[in-house]
């Protein structure tokens, strides 16, 4: 076992000296609880960090742009909707006149 091929008479004694030890039953629960609390702390920290980041005016550009783009897209959709409904109405009126 010592890597010399022949086993020393001390080795069986060492196997007894260093008998493996079972961990206490509560240790797994303790580790799990700590891991969960760390995950929760990390999530809270992230939420706090996002809120704090929003207080910095340098971080306002992206949401402002998003708002602008969203607004423009919404207005575009509205105009398109209006345009289409007007066209449908006109088509209906001209079809009625043809008859």
């Amino acid at each position: 076992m010592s890597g010399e091929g022949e086993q020393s008479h001390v080795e069986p004694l060492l196997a007894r000296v260093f008998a493996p030890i079972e961990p206490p039953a509560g240790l797994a629960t303790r580790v799990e609880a700590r891991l969960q609390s760390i995950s929760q702390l990390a999530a809270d920290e992230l939420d706090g960090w996002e809120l704090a980041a929003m207080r910095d005016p340098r971080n306002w550009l992206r949401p402002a742009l998003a708002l602008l783009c969203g607004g423009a897209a919404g207005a575009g959709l509205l105009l398109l909707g209006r345009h289409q409904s007007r066209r449908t109405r006109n088509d209906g009126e001209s079809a009625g006149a043809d008859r």
Partner: protein
Amino acid sequence: MAEPAKTKAQLDADFAELYSAHARDLYSYAYYKVGNHHDAEDLVEQTFLQAYRHFERALRESDGRPLRPWLLRIAHNLAANHYRYRSKHPLTTLDDSSPLAATHSTEELVQGRDELARVIEGVKQLPDDRREALIMRFALGMDNREIARALGRSDGATKVLIHRAIKQLEGVVALAPASHR
């Protein structure tokens, strides 16, 4: 091709498996290293917390190799910090005889007609690295290669380390008074 990243649920399941597979080894190592159950529990807990932080990377970089040496390396470094801290902030006298003697009953020690007691005494006299290698070999059943990875040494150096530790212990047992044999 790179493997797709694991979800948190998958990682947690893998980590739970890692814990079940190695908790006993880590605890045995910690107990023989720090010398009492209280500190051993703390050391194992801290080791797994540290391992959890870097688990994804360790899985990626281990390339399928066992993670036990990595866990032991974390425990080894944390234990070194523990000793540094304890040397600056001693609580009570560290009872260094307890971890080895406590796992054996008086009856067992008497029956072994002190050969066992002498080996225990000899182990206490070993330098840290030799004792650590013996813990890994005999309490955890690790081979030279795994011990080498855990200690950050070459396979050859580890083989020599264990060989010298055993030779030193043979010397201690042989030096005992004849009446004890």
